[in-house]
């Protein structure tokens, strides 16, 4: 009986831990994506680029996010035909470019604050 409870409790803890980690990662995705799009990239190359930097993002999260950032005016995109097929390239818009240094500054602030706290 006790063992059952412990197992259950552990499962719960793991689940909560995963949820918190997911939330933490979700917070940095926008900044990570924006910082990778100083030069234009198409969706799949961006996902690989982020993976190489150590950030694995689910495709179902990244592609809709790119569209949302574009509709918010932070990115712009254009279709280009390469190797006989169309690819959509994304790049920072002027607004996004102006915003990025401020976001980086904010991020540095958060990191140093958290370092002091932890």
């Amino acid at each position, binding site marked *: 009986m006790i063992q059952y409870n412990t197992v259950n409790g552990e499962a719960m803890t793991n689940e909560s831990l995963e949820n918190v980690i997911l939330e933490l990662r979700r917070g940095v995705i*926008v900044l990570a994506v924006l910082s990778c799009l100083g030069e234009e990239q*198409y*969706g*799949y*190359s961006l996902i690989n680029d982020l993976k190489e930097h150590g950030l694995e993002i689910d*495709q*179902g*999260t990244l*592609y*809709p996010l790119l*569209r949302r950032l574009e509709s*918010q005016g932070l990115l712009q995109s254009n*279709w280009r035909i390469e190797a006989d*097929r*169309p*690819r*959509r390239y994304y790049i920072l818009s002027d607004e996004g470019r102006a915003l990025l240094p401020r976001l980086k500054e904010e991020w540095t602030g958060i990191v140093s604050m958290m370092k002091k706290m932890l």
Partner: protein
Amino acid sequence: MSTNLIDTYVSEVGRRLPRKTRTDIEAEIRSILQDMLDERSQKTGKPVDEEMTLEVLKSYGDPEKVAATYQGERYLIGPRLYPIFMMVLRIVLLVTGILAAIGLGVAAYQTTLTPLNAFETIIKAIANFGASIMTVLGNIVLIFAILEWALFRAGGKVEVKGLPKEKEWDPRSLSKVSSPNQVKMGETILEIVGCFAAIVVFNFYPQIIGFTPNLNSVVESGSWASITFFPLLSEAFFIYVPFLTIVWVLTIILDIVLLRMGHWNTVARINSIGLKVVGILIAAIMLSGPSLVAVTTETLTASLGDAGAAQILIKLLFQFVHLVLWLSIILGSLDVIRIIYRQFVNKETPFVVPEKK
């Protein structure tokens, strides 16, 4: 074959997307899938085949889930309106229940009750109750869904730029919305219940509006069956019911918006005045139009057996209906004056701290 699979997959995602963005998203997914296939083919040194396509599609995910990621969260009735929706639903279901019970009472009262038809009456009442619950639920959900849609359209900016920029809440606004701008909760809920009851009664249970002139015959004969029940309202009255229903429905919508806002503003006041004026006009037209009372001196004389008493009763009835209409015109006009007064004259009422006794 693999192209066919991709086509099918992409169109499966596409048909779950809004028409406006469908083609664009479909093209993007197709392009990404081809990138994935290319990479896989290079890594394994094999040409793209059906098996590889199936693997890639499996890793991309269920079309339904993929489509959902592009849509964001959508609500028929969102979290902002949900508490008020539940409150209105509870009140209205309670009122419908009470009305159904009254309807059952009247039905029992109008028929000779034997065990067989008592059972039939109850079954019919339950069926009617079920039908009116469905209508009521449908109408309330519809009203709230329209409100949700309107709110979504009006407040589309909430979603943008990372953190939602909500209007800063100032605790001092609490004192500003004290009388006369504050919406009176009890009064407003009462109005919602009243309008709703009127909608249900006049549209679904018009037969319960009537009267019986000879109730004491029950005591004499000991049977409910001896009662003659006269429906009070004529066909002429029911011509106005759709118009009145529109006014009542709009009044309910306005009341819900007011409950949600918590205070009156100019737009709400203009709408309220508009509704009241329409209500007054309908009452005035009803007053000048054909008779709203279905009972005539002849039918009543036949039932009572006394022409004099029937005449007096009919006169009283007509006067009663006129009185109700005049009252609604006068009270409606007073309401309009009160609303205008509060908007223009009493705008800057200071917050008064009650004196200590």
